[in-house]
């Protein structure tokens, strides 16, 4: 009987000692990457530039084949020309003729439409040819850069064409972009349906935030520094703030945004992922399942907001016309594709409690919004104030000392974007005869400390997918837990819609509605200004 050897087992039996000590110690096996929706914006702005950058830096194995598939009729040459322009415009790595020449030989196009079946044969023949001539050996990644409504029909089509089943010596993986459903029920249904076609280990739910170096550095910061983890709990941390601020409006995504809103667009995925990484227990190793287990445990511990309490635990906002970064910009209701009477939220702030031993009593304040004064994503850890101050000062108590609340609390600010870095605020003595104190900042700037340019998030995530490393991808239960939290809020909002004239409630260029400030001040706290 011929023994069937899996690829992993074969590689273990036949090690590659040349890889030891090199920067990339794992090389993906040659594979074909099929991008459905290849004529779309994401392919041109992110996917192809990321794949090209990986190829130019030698991170892709020889033989990698990329097949663009979309409804737009196009020849291979036309597709290559379009992708060349995309690389010239969007790639982190400048286009070079010699690199492009090799990259382009692995670039193909297959006209494909979900409705008629005629494109699938062409796609299959392209892939078979790639296996024969480029050594891709049946390894496939199907990247679904398609609208949410297209995900399940496309998955079914691939299943029926026999393209989903991986063998013992090849892999078949599918990459799915957010949104992963629009509430808990639809997310459960999406996962259930996807699991009919693919096993969970074949599904890579991509949230590009997780591919950012600064997000990965959160894990390193927490679990490779002995000095912070002992403080990382309710005993020392007063509260946590996570802000994802955008200066842009909805641009040309008005119709999508009318359906989504800030909660679905940002909170359910990006912010929940940041919160999970920030708050989770230390994983015992960095394997995908271990890390994701810990993230899910944290999300499960988030206290559900009863729909009746949604209004007291959240603030909704919608931007009016205003000034952002020196430009006058229209209000949300004047944006293309948006109803003039829209009640869709473009801003949301909320307070979540986490019911576990680490975080009980330490709230997490989350906020996101469009048309805020600047683009900034940051996490602020505010430590508890000193219990007693022995120092005198201008604001003296009867004992002649500063009250503890006159001393700024220590802050740790983790900047995700832009200006990736970390700031630690602590108190220092002002030089001089008198004992005067004030806060000072200690700054770490990612760009200043590491000369190497950070790869784009999509580069990291595409390479991880090729390697079969799902650590930085969302697992089904993570997505469901995040929806559990958000769906309760959505239910509450639905039961208590805002008055027609209560929106818009903040001017473009402001840090959200006034209620957001009052919301956190109610707890005796302030939003940190990014």
């Amino acid at each position, binding site marked *: 009987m011929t023994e069937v050897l899996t*690829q992993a087992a*074969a*590689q273990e039996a*036949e*090690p*590659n*000692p*040349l*890889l*030891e*000590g*090199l*920067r*990339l110690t794992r*090389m993906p*096996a*040659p594979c074909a990457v099929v991008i459905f929706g290849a004529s779309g914006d994401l392919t041109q702005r992110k996917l192809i530039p990321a794949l090209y950058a990986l*190829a*130019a*830096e*030698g991170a892709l*194995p*020889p*033989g990698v084949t990329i097949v663009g598939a979309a409804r737009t009729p196009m020849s291979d040459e036309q597709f290559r020309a379009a992708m060349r322009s995309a690389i010239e415009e969007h790639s982190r*790595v400048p286009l*070079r003729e*010699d*690199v492009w*020449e*090799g*990259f382009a*030989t692995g670039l193909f196009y297959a006209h494909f439409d979900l409705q008629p079946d005629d494109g699938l044969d062409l796609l299959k023949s392209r892939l078979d040819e790639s296996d*024969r*001539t*480029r*050594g891709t*050996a049946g390894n496939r990644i199907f990247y679904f850069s398609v609208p949410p409504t297209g995900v399940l029909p496309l998955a079914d089509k691939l299943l029926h064409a026999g393209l989903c089943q991986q063998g013992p*010596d090849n892999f078949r993986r599918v990459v799915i972009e957010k949104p992963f459903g629009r509430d808990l029920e639809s997310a459960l249904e999406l996962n259930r349906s996807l699991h009919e076609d693919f096993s969970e280990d074949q599904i890579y739910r991509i949230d590009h935030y997780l591919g950012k170096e600064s997000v990965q550095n959160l894990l390193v910061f927490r679990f490779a520094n002995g000095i912070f983890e002992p403080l990382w709990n309710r005993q020392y941390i007063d509260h946590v703030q996570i802000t994802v601020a955008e200066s842009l409006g909805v641009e040309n995504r008005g119709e999508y945004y009318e359906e989504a809103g800030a909660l679905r667009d940002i909170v359910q995925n990006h912010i929940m992922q940041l919160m999970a990484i920030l708050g989770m227990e230390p994983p015992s190793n960095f394997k995908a399942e271990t890390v994701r287990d810990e993230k899910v445990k944290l999300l499960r511990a988030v206290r559900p907001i009863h729909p009746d309490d949604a209004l007291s635990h959240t603030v909704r906002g919608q931007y009016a016309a205003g000034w952002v970064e020196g430009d006058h910009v229209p209000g949300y209701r004047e944006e293309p594709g948006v109803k003039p009477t829209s009640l869709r939220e473009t801003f949301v702030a909320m307070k979540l409690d986490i019911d576990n031993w680490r975080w009980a009593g330490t709230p997490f304040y989350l906020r996101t919004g469009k048309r805020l004064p600047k683009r900034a994503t940051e996490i602020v850890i505010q430590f508890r104030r000193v219990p007693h101050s022995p120092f005198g000062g201008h604001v003296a108590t009867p004992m002649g000392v500063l009250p503890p609340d006159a001393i700024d609390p220590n802050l740790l600010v983790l900047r995700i974007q832009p200006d990736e870095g970390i700031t630690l605020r602590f108190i220092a003595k*002002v*030089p001089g005869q008198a004992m005067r104190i004030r806060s000072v900042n200690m700054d770490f700037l990612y760009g*200043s*400390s*590491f*000369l*190497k*340019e950070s790869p784009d998030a999509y580069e990291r995530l595409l390479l991880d997918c090729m390697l079969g490393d799902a650590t930085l991808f969302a697992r089904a239960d993570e997505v469901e837990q995040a929806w559990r939290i958000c769906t309760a809020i959505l239910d509450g909002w639905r039961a208590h819609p805002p008055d027609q004239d209560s929106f818009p409630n903040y001017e473009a260029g402001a840090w959200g509605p006034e209620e957001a400030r009052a919301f956190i001040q109610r707890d005796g706290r302030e939003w940190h200004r990014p």
Partner: protein
Amino acid sequence: MSVTSAPSPLRYRHASGLHAVTGALHQLHYELLTSRGDDRSQVRTSVMNLVAACTDRSRGDGAAADLLRIGMRHPARAIVIVANAEHEPQLEADLSLQCGLDDNHVCTELVRLDVQGEPAYHLTSIVAPLLIPDMPVYLWVVGAPPLSQPFTDEVIALVERIILDSGEYADVADTLALISSQLEKRAGKLPLADIAWQRTQPWRQLIAQAFDPWAARPWLRHITDVSIRCAGRVTTSDAWLLGGWMASRLGWTRDGSPRISVAGDGDTPPAESTPDVDMLGRLAEVEIRAQRGADIAALSLQRRGDSIHTSIDIPPGMRTARTVALPLRDEADLLSSMMAEGGDDPVYRAAVASAASLAAARG
């Protein structure tokens, strides 16, 4: 990404004698801190001490420029020593404060020391008082000065890393043998980084990649010939290190191993193709051949300007060719990346031992 451009001098001092140098350095500090008259405006931070040692004034100028460029990203105290033992004992120093052009408050203190006479044999005693305490010290051995001083116990105890370029030394076999014996003797305690080894990194990466697909791995055991060529007429340590790396990784012994041919390609590369970096001695071509029965697999890597073209032909049907960008990295870039990495590198240790053995066998 290249290191940021060179800064401009803000303050300047000249001093004679070590005592005067330390005084002048202290004064520079104070002037920087008080330059704005506002204690909030100027935060001076240094994250390390950079020390470059050489025997040639023009190499010292180049090293100073490189250290300043690194200093704009890693604020530092940079000390450049030009040592010459042949004259009367003398110590002269030029001190300057170099700050970024974009008002980013990042400044580097540059101390240029001209050490002559007997003190040139005792550089540690001169440098130690000038270092910022509790900050890591990186020693860059510039050019090809004798390696007797950098490999002393007192230097090894002082520095975080010793960076040298084995490719600078004319007698490659002796140099590699010396490095290998020091690494062996100090059993992982010699914090050595070799710029020549760093230059071979993209080549090693591509060779390792070529043999990584499942179907290609068995061919590693059937390599029969390795040919390594570097630009120019002599064989440099880059080429020996690459050969040594393959031999050590694949467990080749001197007897019965594949044929390894290491040589210069006899050509001098045209200057216009690579105006920024001297290509002499750099790796130019690698060819690897493997045989299993009647089947022959071949891997070829060729430098083409600032890229490496790779072609792979592995039976039964894996035939691919591609070109990977090979960013030409100047010394400041290479130094920065080598400072970022730390600790003992057992792969290098094994490679340099094999390289020394191969080079010695060539005679």
